[in-house]
């Protein structure tokens, strides 16, 4: 598992980093040999980013993330410092001693200050780093071991071997201390400044805003230098916290506006509001296609889908804005196994790809149907509540992460299968109904947030359940009830029902065209009757259900053991955070 860094924006804004480094270097009391302030002359982050490898993801939630990475850096970054040093050793020695017992030389301790310039280059880092990201508390980056392998120190005293060796030794030891002790504090402060508006000082904001104004391809988080991993969890919160209005086009593959809309959706879910904004330029998980799975590079797939953006973004990584952006920024060349912890699981692509290919083969309607069919709540959960999607993410990781990320990833990967599995087995004999039911059941999660008709009240999951994605515990007792009332109903009535039940869900199919055609948001909840192509839609839905069921069955065969785990996990979680959509 590795990351792909978009290193160039991080290089662009080093002025603030330089100032921060200068102030932090001068804050601590300097040894007496350094007479003047230490000024950072030049800071160049180099052209190659560090290589990160995820070892373990310990905690993944909407507003927090914790992971262990293996980092290695062999780049050409360099740092130049400028200061003045005292050349008279007697002076520095006597200046720190009490004058009572000092020999008090007449003139032998007079000082001579020499300007000094030091360049640190050829920095080789390799170590394990623990990254903890929390929305409230910022980012904490801690090195488990001493990461500094080697360093080249060149200074104005290079012609004197004694001084050169002394400088090399001293600076190396100081840098080790810096990495282990000071760097986490600096990064923490920097992250607090970035993430929390209340922590942000006016000065910090103005330069960042100025920067965003200057450069078109803005990465709003570019000014956090040396934070490649920040983009991991940043986009989620950062988009809502920052007040940048211009949606970045090139680097940030998520749109600020969409993030705001996602936030609005989240809020609407929580407040039972009927307002659900449509998302433009987004990729829904349901649209992931198998073809896209092969070019897993989000960087590739996302722009690929950009032109046909409205609904046909069907890359796995891009089913949620954040997950798409994060991998696009941070992930390396896609590979199936490299993806899982982020966005999807091995089985998921297949599931999604089915839908997406189907959607691609047809226009408009197909996509709409697919969304409706596959995971109404889930997609919604993804789209409407990006936070919860990501929360679903870590939540899936939470119960399943028992230590080895691989296992958890696999578990997560199978979660999708499990979800479909759990949803579909009752459906398999009656695919259509089951599908409906599954769609209904999937709708159940958001139903808890919405006004629900009395008929479906039984279907409502426990009110304290903030899990917005369908789960086995929610749905297992329900299906029968769900099935029977709904089965005999004609489609339109069912649709109506589902409309009542699952406003957001029903909203989905009309929503898609809306987002594509930029319909007004106000028309969202009320255009249910406008669902077009009813018969085709139903047929397509049935086909999708069949395919899903098949895939799920395959997954189930492959991983039968997980079901127990997952049920266990769900039993544990009860009313805990929402697992991801794919974890039923």
């Amino acid at each position, binding site marked *: 598992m590795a990351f792909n860094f978009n290193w160039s924006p991080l290089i662009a804004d080093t002025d603030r980093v330089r100032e921060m480094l200068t102030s932090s270097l001068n804050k601590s009391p300097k040894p007496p040999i350094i007479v003047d302030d230490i000024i950072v002359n030049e800071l160049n982050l180099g052209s190659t980013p560090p290589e990160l490898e995820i070892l373990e993801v310990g905690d993944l939630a909407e507003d927090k993330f914790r992971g262990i990475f293996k980092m290695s850096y062999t780049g050409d970054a360099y740092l130049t410092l400028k200061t003045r040093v005292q050349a008279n*050793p007697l002076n520095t020695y006597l200046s720190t001693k*009490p004058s009572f017992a000092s020999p008090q030389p007449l*003139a032998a*301790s007079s000082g001579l200050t020499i300007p000094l310039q030091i360049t640190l280059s050829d920095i080789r880092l390799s170590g394990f780093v623990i990254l903890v990201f929390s929305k409230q508390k910022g980012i904490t980056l801690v090195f488990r071991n001493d990461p500094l392998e080697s360093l080249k120190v060149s200074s104005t005293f290079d012609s004197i071997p004694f001084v050169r060796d002394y400088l090399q030794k001293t600076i190396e030891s100081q840098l080790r201390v810096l990495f282990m002790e000071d760097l986490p504090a600096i990064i923490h402060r920097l992250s607090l400044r970035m993430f929390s508006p209340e922590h942000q000082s006016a000065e910090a904001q103005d330069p960042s805003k100025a920067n965003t104004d200057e450069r078109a391809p803005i990465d709003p988080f570019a000014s956090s230098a040396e934070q490649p991993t920040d983009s991991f969890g940043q986009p989620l919160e950062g988009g809502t916290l920052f007040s940048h209005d211009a949606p970045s086009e090139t680097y940030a593959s998520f749109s600020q506006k969409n993030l705001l809309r996602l936030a609005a959706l989240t809020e609407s879910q929580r407040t039972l509001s009927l307002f659900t904004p449509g998302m433009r330029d987004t990729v829904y998980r349901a649209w992931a296609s198998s073809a896209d799975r092969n070019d897993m590079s989000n960087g590739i797939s996302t722009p690929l889908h950009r032109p046909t953006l409205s609904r046909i973004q069907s890359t796995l990584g891009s089913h949620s804005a954040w997950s798409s952006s994060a991998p696009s920024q941070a992930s390396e060349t896609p590979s199936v196994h490299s993806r899982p912890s982020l966005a999807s699981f091995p089985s998921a692509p297949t599931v999604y790809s089915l839908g997406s290919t189907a959607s691609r083969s047809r226009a408009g309607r197909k996509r709409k149907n697919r969304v409706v069919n596959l995971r109404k709540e889930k997609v919604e959960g993804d789209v409407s509540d990006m936070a919860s999607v990501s929360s679903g993410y870590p939540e899936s990781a939470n119960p399943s992460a028992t230590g080895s990320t691989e296992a958890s990833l696999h578990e997560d990967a199978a979660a999708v299968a499990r979800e479909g599995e759990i949803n579909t087995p009752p459906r398999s004999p009656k695919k259509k109904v089951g599908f409906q039911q599954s769609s209904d059941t999937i709708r159940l999660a958001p139903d808890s947030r919405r006004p629900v008709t009395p008929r479906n009240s039984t279907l409502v999951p426990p009110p304290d359940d903030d899990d917005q994605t369908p789960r086995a515990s929610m749905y297992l007792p329900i299906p029968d009830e769900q099935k029977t009332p709904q089965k005999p109903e004609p489609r339109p009535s069912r649709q109506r029902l589902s409309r009542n039940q699952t406003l957001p869900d029903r909203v989905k199919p009309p929503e898609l065209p809306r987002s594509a055609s930029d319909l007004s948001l106000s028309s969202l909840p009320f255009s249910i009757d406008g669902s077009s192509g009813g018969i085709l839609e139903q047929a397509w839905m049935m086909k999708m259900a069949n395919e899903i069921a098949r895939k799920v069955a395959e997954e189930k065969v492959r991983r039968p053991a997980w079901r127990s785990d997952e049920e266990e996990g769900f039993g544990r979680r009860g009313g805990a955070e929402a697992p991801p959509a794919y974890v039923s």
Partner: protein
Amino acid sequence: MLEFMDYVLTAFHAQSRWNRDNSYASLTATAANLLDFPVPNGIRLHVSALSSANFASSYTLGSRGVVDGSLSYLYTSLGLSIPSRSSALHLGNLVQGYRHLAALQQPENLRLNEILRNGKKEERRDALLYGRLYLPTSSLEALYLRRISATRLLRLACVSDGTLPNGGSILAVLQNDFGKYSTEYLYSTDSSLIGARGLYNFGYDPRSPDKPSGRTPAHPWDHQGGRLSAGAEAYFSPMNKSGGISTGLRFTTLPIHTGFPYTMTLTINPLMGNLSSSYAVKAGPNLAFCSRFDFNVYSYESDVMIGMELWQRQQPSTEVSWANALLRSDWKRAEADPNGVLKARVDNHGKVGLLWECRVKELLVSLGAGFDLKKRERMLGNVGVEPASDPPDAIIFGAYSLQGSRKQIVAECGYNLASK
């Protein structure tokens, strides 16, 4: 102004006939007195007493930090007969200004320090013990002086502080004064510093009983009205592998010199390329000027500092004014006791220092101020007030006032208005 303990120490040296000026370390003492006077920092109250001829104590209370203070005790085996009443102290002894060099003496010829012990003539071996405890910082200073022989003085200075490496350090200095020349050897346990100093006085040799005024100059450099001294020092620390050397030259006019007394010094640090030259002149009985120029041949850094000192003498009282009128102008008049001293210094960075030391009704007051003219928005203000009061008026140590006349209380306090 000298603290009371330093004043006692000076008295000890004077009474035991040890010439402190005949040392390389005090080559630039005049310039240092006129230019590097300490401006008091914060409020500080000194209460000191010479409890007996052999014992002195002093307590200080200051305002650095929240509160800081120290207690110090001093014991000498040589009974000191010095005035310790604040009203009786001669301000000239307390305030160090332009220094007139004492005449060189031949220590071996001194018979004043011999005593009879067990029927044999022995030289006095005076000792002095001094200890000071700083209370908030819990650091201890100790000093031990011992006059080993007429020409040797051993000095041990120790500092014990938890914050120092090895808990403290000891400095041992062995000073030899042979009149014509003097040497010092020192050793410090802190980083094993070894040092040596030497000073050689040209011209008058106290070992030969020539009178300078009547002697014809033997060579152009034999300036009888003045004394040319040259010295050097060297330090080496095997632990730090560091060291330093310096050399210096001084020419001072002796009191028989007609004209304004002046002192010129030049010190060189060849390793660091530092040159420092100073010129001090006593323009009148109450006025002295000094200027110092520092230059570094490697880094071309230079500094200039100018200072002056103005003494305020007591005006003769009206009762004796008729007698003053009878004095002829060419008669040598004894200088009246000084009432106050004003010192000022300016350097080329715009830093100004002012110090006013006076006696106010049994109190010795010292007010100081330091300014930085380049920083318009911030001017450091230091005001130091040192009052010394008579025992009956002393509030703090009333017990001392009950005892004999030797027991005096010299209370000094410094007050600082630093607006940093």
